[in-house]
């Protein structure tokens, strides 16, 4: 009875001033919408600029809807720079890095979560410790190493440092530890080995975590800048971010061309974000790493 009374009083307290609540909500909505617009608008402006002619950009007032619509910017930038090559490089590097990272992380995670071996906990601690080492510390020796291997300015150099992911191993180990073991034990009874159990039972059951890692790896690789900037020099090997920053050196203020290049760089990640939003947000917030 006491609980019931509490609830009804709480409801009354909340509905006491309906008008001020409605006004308050409206204000919050307006402010949030303005903020949301501020987040979206620069993207629209980029898109709009990419269809402007060079002359129109210099004549005020700025126009959101270009007139005339200039379709040639994309062709122009693609003929002056291997823009499509950048795109293919970025897609290729991100895809390969994602597949490798998910595979190696899942396998290591299975070992840490399910197998027993000497030194397991110490080894896991080593994985965690590498999470604290920032890229700027390892990047110089890594460059020297690639130089020693004769891999400076090559595709392998772009991918090699992202074969393994300590974060991914950690994430998937947590997920595997949370899975019920009944199915696995039944499979072992039936004579299945660890490889089968890993592929047929553990991986499918942990699919949400695997998807989170996959989407996160893809976004991180797609956006990575410092390492590709340092290790690659030939335009043919550049990823989109590096290629774009080079474009900027050449077309310092040709904003219609630069925004056309930027639009090309945004579209793939936009697709991944919209399709896998749940996983993107989870991956980025769990790792604390940003694009």
């Amino acid at each position: 009875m006491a609980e019931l009374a509490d609830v009804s009083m709480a409801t009354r307290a909340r509905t006491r001033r309906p008008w001020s609540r409605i006004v308050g909500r409206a204000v919050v909505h307006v402010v949030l919408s303005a903020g949301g617009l501020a987040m979206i608008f620069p993207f629209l402006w980029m898109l709009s600029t990419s269809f402007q002619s060079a002359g129109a950009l210099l004549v005020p007032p700025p126009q959101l809807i270009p007139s005339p619509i200039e379709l040639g910017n994309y062709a122009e930038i693609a003929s002056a720079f291997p823009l499509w090559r950048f795109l293919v490089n970025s897609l290729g590097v991100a895809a390969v890095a994602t597949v490798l990272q998910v595979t190696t992380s899942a396998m290591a995670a299975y070992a840490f979560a399910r197998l027993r071996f000497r030194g397991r906990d110490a080894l896991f601690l080593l994985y965690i410790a590498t999470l604290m080492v920032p890229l700027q510390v390892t990047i110089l020796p890594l460059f020297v190493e690639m130089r020693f291997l004769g891999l400076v300015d090559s595709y392998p150099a772009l991918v090699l440092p992202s074969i393994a992911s300590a974060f991914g191993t950690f994430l998937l180990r947590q997920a595997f530890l949370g899975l019920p073991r009944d199915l696995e034990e039944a499979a072992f009874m039936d004579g299945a080995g660890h490889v089968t159990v890993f592929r047929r039972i553990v991986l499918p059951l942990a699919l949400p975590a695997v998807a989170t890692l996959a989407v996160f790896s893809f976004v991180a690789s797609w956006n990575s800048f410092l390492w590709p900037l340092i290790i690659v020099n030939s335009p043919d090997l550049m990823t989109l971010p590096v290629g774009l920053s080079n474009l900027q050196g050449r077309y310092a203020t040709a904003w219609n061309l630069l925004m056309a290049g930027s639009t090309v760089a945004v579209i793939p990640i936009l697709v991944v974000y919209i399709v896998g939003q749940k996983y993107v947000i989870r991956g980025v917030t769990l790792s604390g790493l940003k694009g």
Partner: protein
Amino acid sequence: MVGQRGWQYRAVVLLFIAPSLVPLLLFTVGPMVAAAGLSTVRWNLLRPPEFVGLDNYVRLAADANFRDAVLHTVAYVSGYLPLVMVGGMLIALALNQRLRGLAIFRTAYFLPVVTSWVVVALMWRWLLDPGAGLVNYLLGLVGVDGPGWYNDPAWAMPSVIIASAWKDLGFVMVILLAGLQSIPEEYYEAASVDGAGRWTRFRHITLPLLTPSLFFVLVISLINNLQVFDQVWVMTKGGPAGATTVVVEQIVTNAFSYGQMGYAASMSLLFFVVLLLITLVQFRLQRRWVTYG
């Protein structure tokens, strides 16, 4: 269960661990250890390295450019952190009111977070273009003569800060929103029954229970942003007149433009130690203000 001894079992363990352990040793742990060695040589990558002991660190202490870069980095973080923390908090609080369209707002605010820094930096260079940019045009409409933004040494760092805060607001918001949504509704109901007003509820329920999320996002943001690089490289390249040089940019410039690998390595190691210390101090201080449970 499958037997846990014998060479077969060991082979299975190796099969699962090696594909990630070997690359991790080769490309993370190895370079980490090598960085210490690298910081004790003078080496331009062309001639053989020359051992100089701790000379690089001694030189670092007297390097005015490095000192400036440290000061700029601190200035950047001091401008950036309050903006994203307060901004992210306000948006999270607003979104936490069971609003209709929550998903749409969250999508919009998080979009810049997943966008490549190079794209964001170019977008903002265009918006802030001192001549034809939209921002100065709008300022002109209300009678304000817009500044030279990234072309003006006094406004270059604020330009970088504005773009960075815009990009990361959604990141802070998502983490704080998750924190807010994990606060049990009963606490608020009980407080309302006791006659607590909005502010009291915020001050005595929301804020204390949000401190773990605030702590997490503060630690992460500080570590990430002391290493600010991408946006600076694309927006200003450290200029104009060296007004926006930052630590990681100095590491890259010294290593690859000036050919001073050893010296740059000493910078990166010193900086790493400072980052660790800052994080350690934050963990120490958390007892004073973070409420768990």
